[in-house]
C-alpha cells in the first residue's frame, strides 16, 4: 500500500498512528473542538459539582422562593426556594447518564442485528432488515409513552422508583433507536466481507465469529462511533421530553426536563427557572452534535484534509 500512496499528502509527512491521525483531522473542525471542551466542562461540573456546591437539592425555604440569580443562588431558586444550581447538577448526572447508557444499548443492539444481517446471505438477513424497516416506521414518542405507561409500576416495585425508571427509560430509548446503527453496520459488512483480507482470513480457516470480531468489525467501527455520538444527543432529548411531559422520572428527581416541566407555569414571574435547565440541555445537545460532525470529518478516511 505504502508504495501506491506516496503521492498523497499524508504520506510525505510520515506515518501517524490511526488515533493521532484522527485527532489531527478532528482539530481542523474548530466548532467541534470548542464543543468537546464545552462538553468536558459540563461533565466535570456534574461529576465534581456536588463536592464544591454543597447546598441540598431539597432544602425548602419558601420565603426565598422564585428569586433570580444572586450570589447565594447563582441560578436563582424555584417556587419552594430550592437552589436551582444544586438541582441542575444532580439532574445533569441523570440526564447525561441516561444519554450514555441508552447510546450503549442502541449501539450494542444495532451492531448485533446489523452484523447478523450483514453476514447472512439468506432469509435471516432479509427478515432482520424487514424488522429494522418496521421499527423505523413506528411512531417513537407515542410508543415510548405507551411503554412507560404500561411498565412503569412493575419496574418501580422491582428496582425502586428511581432505579426502575432509569432502567426502563434507558432500555426503551435505546431499544427504539438501534435501527440506523443496524443499517450502517449492515452496509459496511456487505462491502467489507468481500474484501481480500477477509477472504484471506477465511482461507486460513478463521471461523465466522473470528472473521467478524477480528477483521470486519474493526473496519466498520467509524460510522458506528459517529452514529453513537449523535445517539447520545437524541437520547438526552428523548429523556428530557419524557420528563417535560411529566412522564419521566418521579417528581422529586430534578432532571433537566423535569425542571423545565415544573418551571413552565411560572414563566412570567421566574423565567430564569426555565432558562438555565433549557440552556443546559441545548448546550449538551449542540456540543454532542458538533462533536459528531467533527468525528465524521476525522473518521472518513476517503476525505483528504
Amino acid at each position, binding site marked *: 500500500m505504502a508504495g501506491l500512496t506516496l503521492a498523497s499528502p499524508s504520506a510525505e509527512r510520515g506515518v501517524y498512528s490511526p488515533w493521532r491521525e484522527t485527532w489531527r483531522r478532528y482539530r481542523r473542525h474548530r466548532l467541534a473542538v470548542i464543543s468537546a471542551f464545552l462538553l468536558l466542562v459540563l461533565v466535570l461540573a456534574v461529576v465534581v459539582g456536588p463536592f464544591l456546591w454543597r447546598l441540598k437539592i431539597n432544602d425548602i425555604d419558601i420565603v426565598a422562593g422564585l428569586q433570580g440569580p444572586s450570589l447565594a443562588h447563582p441560578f436563582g431558586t424555584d417556587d419552594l426556594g430550592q437552589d436551582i444550581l444544586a438541582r441542575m447538577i444532580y439532574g445533569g448526572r441523570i440526564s447525561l447518564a441516561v444519554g450514555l447508557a441508552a447510546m450503549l444499548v442502541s449501539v450494542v443492539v444495532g451492531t448485533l442485528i446489523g452484523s447478523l444481517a450483514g453476514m447472512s446471505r439468506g432469509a435471516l438477513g432479509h427478515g432482520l432488515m424487514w424488522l429494522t424497516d418496521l421499527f423505523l416506521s413506528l411512531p417513537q414518542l407515542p410508543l415510548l*409513552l*405507551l411503554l412507560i405507561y404500561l411498565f412503569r409500576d412493575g419496574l418501580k416495585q422491582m428496582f425502586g422508583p428511581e432505579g426502575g425508571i432509569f432502567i426502563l427509560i434507558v432500555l426503551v430509548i435505546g431499544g427504539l433507536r438501534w435501527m440506523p446503527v443496524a443499517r450502517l453496520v449492515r452496509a459496511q459488512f456487505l462491502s467489507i466481507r468481500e474484501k481480500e483480507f477477509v477472504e484471506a482470513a477465511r482461507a486460513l480457516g478463521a471461523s465466522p465469529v473470528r472473521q467478524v470480531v477480528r477483521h470486519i468489525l474493526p473496519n466498520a467501527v467509524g460510522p458506528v462511533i459517529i452514529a453513537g455520538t449523535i445517539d447520545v444527543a437524541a437520547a438526552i432529548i428523548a429523556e428530557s*421530553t419524557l420528563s417535560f411531559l411529566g412522564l419521566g422520572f418521579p417528581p422529586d428527581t430534578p432532571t433537566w426536563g423535569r425542571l423545565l416541566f415544573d418551571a413552565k407555569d411560572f414563566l412570567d414571574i421566574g423565567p430564569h427557572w426555565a432558562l438555565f435547565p433549557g440552556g443546559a440541555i441545548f448546550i449538551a445537545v449542540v456540543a454532542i452534535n458538533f462533536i459528531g460532525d467533527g468525528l465524521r470529518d476525522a473518521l472518513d478516511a476517503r476525505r483528504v484534509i
Partner: protein
Amino acid sequence: MSQYVLRRLLIAIPSLLGISLVLFVVLAMAPGDPFAELATNPNVPPEVAAALRAKFGLDDPIHLRYLHWLSAMAHGDWGFSFVSRMDVDQLILQRLPATLYVIGSAQILALLIAIPVGVYAATKPYSLFDQIANTLAFVGFSLPTFFTGILFILIFSVTLDWLPLVYTTDVKGTGIRWVLEMIRQAIMPVAVLGLFQAASMTRFVRSAMLDVIRLDYVTTARAKGLGQAKVIVKHVMRNAMIPVVTLIALQMPAVFGGAIVTEQIFRIPGIGSLLISSILANDTPVVMAVTFVFACLVVLFNLIADVLYGWLDPRISLR
C-alpha cells in the same frame, strides 16, 4: 402509474399489520389487567367478572385475542373511553383536525424555508451564506421543541404580549375576524414545529443538491446555454428532491413526537395532548387507539412519499 400506486398500497398492509402486532404484544406483555378494577370491586360478584372475561375473550390464547382485537379495530369498534364517556373513534375524530392543521402548516412552513435556503446554499458551497445557514441549521435541530416553545412563549406572549398564550377551539368573533384569530393563535406552535423541521430539511436539501450538481448532465445543460435558474430548478432540483422525499418521510415519526410536545405546551386540543391526558388518567383504550392512529399516519405519509417518487422519477413506477 395507477398500478404502481396499487402495488405500494398492498405493500403498506403488511407494515400496518406488523405495527399492530407490535402494539398488541406490548399491551399483552404489560403487567396489570384491564379488568383488575372489576376484580377488586366488592360490588361485582366473581361470577360476573368471570363472565365478562369470557365475553371479552381475555382467557383465550394470545393469537386468538390478537385476531379478535384486529377485527374489532378494522370494524371501527375502538372501545369506549371511561374518562370522556364517549366512543374512542368519536373522540379521536373530534381531536384529529387540530393536529393535522398544526402538523400540515408546520410542514409547509418547513418546506418554504428549507428548499430555497438549501438550494441557494448548495449553489454557493462554503460561501458565507452557506456557513451561516449550516450553523443555524445545526443549532435549530439541537434545540428541543419543548425549549423553543417555552422561549417563544417567554418572548412573544409574556414579554412582548403579541400572541395569545393558550390555543382555543371556540374562538370569539365571526367571519374574517375568526379566521385572523385562528391564524394568530397557531403562529407560535406552527413556528416551533416548522423551524425544527426546517433545520434538518435544509441539510438534506443542501447535501442532495450538492450530490446532483456535479453530475455531467448538469454541465451539459449549462453548455447548451441554459440560464442558471433554469438549470437549477428544472434539471438539478427535480433529481435532488428524490432522496429528500425519502428523508422527509423517514422524519415523520419525529414530527409526530414534536407535535405531541407542542400540543402539550400550547394546550392545543389535538390527539397528542389527548394521548398525554389519557396516559395520566389511565384510559387504556384511548392510549392504544391514539398510538395506533399515529402509526397509521406514519404509514400513510410513507405511502405518499412512495407515490411522489413515482411522479419525480417515472423509471421507478415502471419497475
